[in-house]
Structure formats: C-alpha cells, structure tokens
C-alpha cells in the first residue's frame, strides 16, 4: 500500500492552513511585531528637509563606514539619483520640477525598519531580528549569503559586500541599534539641523504627523507613508506632494510581506518537525492494514478449504453408498439368474420347485 504524491501534498496544505487559522503564523519564526507598543520610530517630514546631507555624514561616522568618494559637503552629488550600497546606509535624493512644489524637494532613504520585515521573513537562518525597540538588525555570524533578503525587501535597502571574497556581509541601516541601547539618538537624527527627522515612539509620531496635518492645512497630503505600507514601518514619511513624485512606491499595499508567504512557509517547520512522526504513523497504518488483510485472507482460505473437504467427504460417502447398493443389486441379479438357470436345468420338470428344497440353494 502506498500514498500518492498528490495526496501527500494535500495533507501538507491542510496542515498549513490549519496552522494559519489557529493564530498568527510567523514565517521563519518572526517575533510578533505588534507586541512592542513602545517601539521607536522616525518621522521624516519632506517639507522640512533642506538636502544638506548632514544625515549621510553622521551615518557614515557613527557606523564607521568607508569614506565616500566625494565629500559630504559636496551637494553636487544630488544631481544623480542614488541608492543605498554596501558603503552607504542612507542617501538623500533631490527631486525637481514637481508640480505644486515651490523648489526642489529632498528625500532621505534608509531601511524603514518594517514592523513585519520582509527581509527577516525571507531569511531561513534567522539572520535578521526585529528588536523590541523597533530596529531590524542583522547577524552576520549566521548569514549564509543567499541574499534572499535583498530580493524580499520592497524598498530595495539591503545591499551586499560583493567586493569581499571571504567575509561578505549584507549591509543595511541598523536604526543605530547599538546607540539606542546606550540611550543615544540615531546618528542621522542627531545631525539633522531642522528636525526633518523626528525621533520618538512610533505611536507618538503618528499623532505628531496628524497634528501637523491639522495645524497646517494644505501643507501635507493626508497620508502617513509607512503607517500601513507593507503592514507598517518604524520610519514614516509625510509630504506635501504625492509620494510617487519623490520616488516612493505607492503600489506596495498594506499587507505585511510575511503574510503573503506564511501559508507556504508556515508549513516548513511543521514538515521538518513532524516528518518522522508522520511517516512512522503512515508506515504503521499501512502495516496494520496489511496485517489485517493477510489475516482475513488466511481465514477465508481456511474456511474455503474446510467447506471443500466437507463436500468431498459427502460426495465420497454418497459414492460409496451407491457402490454398495450397486454391488448388492448385482449379487441379487446374479443369484436370481443362477436360480433361474437351476430351475431350467431341473428342467423341463414341472415348474416351480417347492420352496425350501435343498436343490434350491446353489452356491454362487
């Protein structure tokens, strides 16, 4: 007895769905992110950013990153749209000619520290951790270098040290987690001269953002980018122009990345843990079924044999009885024949000898 591949997968799917329905399945074993009410965050106000690159400079300094090709005072680099790389955790880009904006606008890019990080959900060695302070940090000691995190991140933030042959790392903003632990501000936040970066508890930041929108009608769009995007991010943005105009994706939706994959990925640990039990069980079931089948077959055969024997015996008996009867009839026939012959030999004499005469018995 064997199970088909299709039926096996069917069971697995059912098991995965059952897990999903039973509670929040955190693919690749994420800690529940909704459970950090005091998690920190940063609110980036596009209307306040002047594009001075002080944040970039501070980031480079506090994270001890390699020196840049062009100095941070050189604002000419803003002519090109840049992105984060293995030597840069954060960049500021300039956007010009936006309808409704008086002059150029600037946007700072760094890891948004998702509440439910896609990078962490894609990592099968748990190299990423969502910390209670809100930071998503990376542990290079377990990283196998698959770079799934880079593919998973909707904001294209993690980068890779391709130029290191032996110890390449995934590089991304850490929210200055080591500094937060010491009670210091993130480097960029501390350096921002106009508090375009407002640091605080995420729930306070949401309130501050709403207050600014109410106090200065017309200055902001009624949207806090990151409040719900990809299930919410610790770093959020408010702006007076559509977010797409300053290079932000507006197609991400509000579903956290792990939610999209938990059905399939949630099954993985189950498969790993339950595999021996499951297979042993399936084996036992199959064995038991085989044994019962065998016993039933044997019993049936025995019964059939017994029935056949009984019938054979009966037939034999009948045959024997018939043979006896035939034998008797043959004897009688022979006796009768002999008597008639004897009578004829006495011949011709008056017929019918008297019964009981000695001549009437003749040995056969």
């Amino acid at each position, binding site marked *: 007895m064997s199970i088909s591949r299709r039926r096996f997968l069917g069971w697995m799917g059912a098991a995965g769905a059952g897990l999903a329905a039973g509670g929040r399945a955190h693919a690749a074993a994420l800690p529940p992110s909704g459970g950090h009410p005091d998690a920190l965050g940063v609110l980036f106000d596009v209307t*306040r950013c*002047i*594009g*001075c690159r002080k944040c970039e400079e501070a980031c480079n300094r506090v994270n001890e990153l390699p020196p840049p090709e062009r100095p941070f005072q050189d*604002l000419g680099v803003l002519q090109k749209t840049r992105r984060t790389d293995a030597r840069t955790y954060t960049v500021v880009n300039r956007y010009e000619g936006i309808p409704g904006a*008086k*002059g150029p606008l600037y946007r700072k890019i760094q890891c948004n520290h998702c509440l439910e990080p896609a990078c962490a959900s894609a990592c099968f060695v748990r190299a990423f951790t969502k910390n209670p302070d809100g930071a998503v940090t990376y542990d290079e000691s377990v990283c196998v270098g698959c770079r799934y995190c880079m593919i998973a991140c909707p904001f294209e933030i993690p980068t890779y040290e391709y130029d290191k042959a032996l110890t390449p790392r995934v590089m991304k903003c850490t929210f200055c987690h080591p500094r937060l632990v010491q009670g210091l*501000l993130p480097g960029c*936040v501390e350096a*921002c*001269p*106009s*508090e375009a970066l*407002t*640091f*605080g*508890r995420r729930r*306070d*930041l949401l*309130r*501050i953002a709403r*207050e*600014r929108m109410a*106090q*200065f*009608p*017309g200055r902001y769009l009624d949207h806090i980018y990151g409040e719900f995007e990809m299930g919410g991010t610790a770093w959020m943005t408010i702006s007076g122009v559509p977010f797409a105009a300053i290079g932000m994706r507006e197609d991400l939706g509000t579903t956290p990345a792990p939610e999209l994959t938990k059905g399939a990925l949630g099954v993985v640990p189950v498969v790993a843990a339950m595999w021996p039990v499951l297979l042993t069980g399936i084996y036992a079931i199959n064995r038991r079924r085989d044994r019962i089948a065998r016993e039933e077959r044997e019993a049936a055969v025995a019964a059939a044999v017994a029935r056949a024997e009984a019938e054979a015996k009966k037939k034999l008996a009948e045959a024997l009885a018939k043979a006896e009867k035939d034998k008797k009839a043959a004897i009688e026939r022979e006796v009768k024949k002999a008597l008639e012959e004897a009578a004829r030999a006495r011949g011709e004499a008056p017929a019918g000898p008297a019964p009981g005469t000695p001549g009437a018995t003749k040995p056969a």
Partner: protein
Amino acid sequence: MTAPRNDRALLRLLPVAAGILVLSAFLLGVQGAAPPPPPEPEPGRPRADIIRIDGLRRFGKLERPAVTYLHEKHTRALAARNLDCLACHLPAEKALSTKFKRLEDVSREQTMAVYHTHCTGCHRETAARGEPSGPVSCAGCHQERPVASSWRDIGMDRSLHYRHVKAQENRCEVCHHERDPATQKLVYVKGNENNCRSCHREEPVEKVRTLRQAAHEQCIDCHRKRIARKEESGPIYCSGCHDPAFQAKVEKVKEVPRLLRGQPDQTLVKAARRGAPPIDPAERAAVVAFNHIGHEAYVDTCRACHHATMASCASCHTLEGAKEGKFVTLQTAMHRGTAEASCIGCHNAVKAKPACAGCHAAIPVKDPPDVAGCASCHVPRPEGLEKGADRQAVARRLLEARSPVRATYADEEIPENVEIKVLSRTYEGAKLPHRRIVKALAKGAAESRLAAAFHRDPGTLCQGCHHHSPVAKKPPACASCHAQPFDPRHPGRPGLQAAYHLQCMECHRHMGVEKPVATDCTGCHKEKR
C-alpha cells in the same frame, strides 16, 4: 428601422440648412466678417479648444471611445472657406445653439445620425475637392487621443464686468435677468441682479440651462453681433476666453468704479434663526461691524463672498443651519479657516502672501479660531443701540472707533543685533541683524490693512518669532521652552537647534529670501577654527 427614416428627415432639412448658410454668408458679407481664428498651436502644445464629444453618454455606456474634437482646428478650416459658426450651429430663437447641427437633445439614433452624416459628409466633400480632410472611418474619430489641455475657467472679475457695463452703456438687462414666477418669463428687476451661477448651475435645473450653455450662447452671440456691427467686441473662439495666454492679454481696468446694487457701505453682520427674520442688533449681546465698501476693493468678484446668491450670509446660513445653506451654520460660515468664502478662510488666504507668510506660515491654523482674536471683530453692543436703529450708522461709528495698529516699537527699543551662540559647537555664534529683520517685517505689515486691523499691539509683530508667550518688549529666551530635542514629554516640540533653524529657514523660504541658502552653513555662522 429608425435610422433610414432619420436620414430622410435630415435630408429634408438639408435644403433649409443650405438656405440658412447662403443667407448668413450673404449677411456676413454685408455686415463685416469675424476676425480670423488664432493660428494653430504647435503640435504637442497644450490647447484650450478640446471638446469631448460624448453626447451618447446620457443613453448609457459608450460603445466606442468618445471623440476628441479640436474646435478651433475646424473653425480655422471653415474660415478658410469663408464659413462661420453657422456651418455647424443652427440659429435658435435668440442665439445660435451650442449643440452641433440641432437645437435640442434628440434620441440616441438621431444624435448618432447627426454627427455621422455631417462630420463624415463634410470630410468626404472636402477630400473630394482634393483638400486636406478629416477621418471618415469609425476609428478615425472614435479613439482615445489624449491632448494636453491649457483650458482655464474664466470669471467676470471687476475689471471685465466694468468693461461690459461700459460697452453696454449701463444696460444691466442685456445680461442680467430672472424668471418671473407668475408669467414664467425672463424679466429684469433693477437692484436684484444676481450671479449667473446662482441659477445656471453645473447641471441643468428644470428649465434653466447649465452655466456652460448659457454663457456660450449669450456671450458668443453678443460678441458675434457686435462684430457684425463692427463694434468693439469680445472673443468668439475658445482660446480667446479659455487659454491662459489670451486671458493674460485681457485689458485690466485699474480704477474700477464701485458697483452699486443697493449694498450698504458699512453694516452690522446679520444673524437669523431658521425661518425667522434677522435678529435685531439691539437684542444681541455683541455685534460685528463689517466694512462692506472696504472689502469690495479686496476681492475680484462679488461671488468671492456671495458664493451662491447675492443675498446676505444669514439668509442661508442661519444660526442653527438650514437646508438652503447646506446646514452650514452662520458661525462656521464665518470662521471656517479652510473655506474660501468665510471671513477667516479669506484672511488666511491673504496671509499666505510672502509679506505675511514669513510669520503666518508657521502659525498653526486653529479651527475654531483662538479666542484671543474674537474681540478683533466682536464688540459688545454699543450704548444707545436702540431697536430699529440705523445699522449702517452704528456700524460706521464702531468701525471708526477701531484703532488700527500700523507700527511696531520705536527703533531704539528694538535690539539692533542679536548673536545666537548658546549652541556654538562646530560653528561660531550666528549674528542676527535683528532690527533690520524687524523693520522688513514691519514694512510688510504696515502696507496691509488686514495686519493693521488684526495686529492688536505694537508687539504683535514680534510674536512671529517670539511665539507662545504674551507680548513683551523682553520676551523669554527661546531655550526656556526649546531644550533637548525629542523630549518624550513634548514629543512634537523641536529642540533648540531645530527651533532656530526652522524659524529662520521657513521664514526665508516663505518670504522668498534667497540668500543665504539653507544649506550654506557659513552664510549665517562662521566655522570654528
């Protein structure tokens, strides 16, 4: 089958239309021709003459894409053949119909037939003459063809209105009319002129035509007739009214005489309960005197305040709200900070000008407004205000009693230079030409009557920077509130460094002060060596 029958009906009409054409061409020849249409804009340039022909929409979903029709392109082609509006528009009772080759809306099939017969008919004829012509296939016209539009609304501002008044020699009845409820006829009632939009809405209401229809029929018809009489006239082509480049060329009259319609010079703002006459000011605890004649000069149209009708605010916006006023109460109608036609909404719009925005852009808009400002408008009912008193006289007296604040402190009371060095770390202290800054702000404020009316104290101006504290010649130091950044007890309050930077940079940005640029650190404070 209906279509063939319609075709026959139209064919019967053709001789009539042809007759009209010939007649009008003859008349035009006699009376003087219209000015030539403006030249075709370069391809790809935004234009103001785009019409979407989608008249079948009212019969349900369109089977094919609507037709993107460039009106002036056709006008130009017709003018080259000495044809004018009448080539496409039929004369109705008073003016030419704005509809194409018909006077009224007709059935779906008839509408289709009108367009298909006449558009492709003309295109075929033109092509037969060997001239460049338009499409004759379905998809030639019915295709999604996005064309950049420069179309802009045009309103009758004070200058334009005055030029019309002058041209029509004060005959208001040429344009203004109302429907007499008894006879259902259009009549003119002197002193009861209204905005066109008070009756002619976006969508037709009963028999009343839309604003679009009414304006195009009445304006263009009058302009055409004046052109025919060789009198000074207005535009008859789309771009003449709706293209921003042409709008900029419209002559502006600087000194527009006051428009008289029986309005008061000064008045007490009326308040009324639903379904009741206005409350007599003598019965109110406080009153608001309104300088009507003054405000007439600040706005471009009566419509700026009288946004629906020319009646008083209280006739729709009652104290408790009424259906006529869309249940917007009088209080909200006057104070809503983000509404265009409210007092405070309009004042806020003025405050967005560079001279004011340096300070005001950083002052949060409060809805409802700060109670400290109430007394600027609301004053206790004056002594001797009797029942049935002359409102205008009382209002005039109250307005005259106001003392506008036009100046700030005397020069010697304003510190000349201020050095901000409390944060000095990488940079030396910033030297602020304090008095020069104050004088620049004071100049802007002195020129504004709004500022004069609402800046209550010579020190009010100082509060642009020295905010959230009472007026004082020696205001508290910034650092007494702005301390460490991101203080969890005051999460929204900027730290000291950001407070300085935001205040300076935001003011410069809103006032258009270009130097020093925000990213030029040494423009304000020297680097420490």
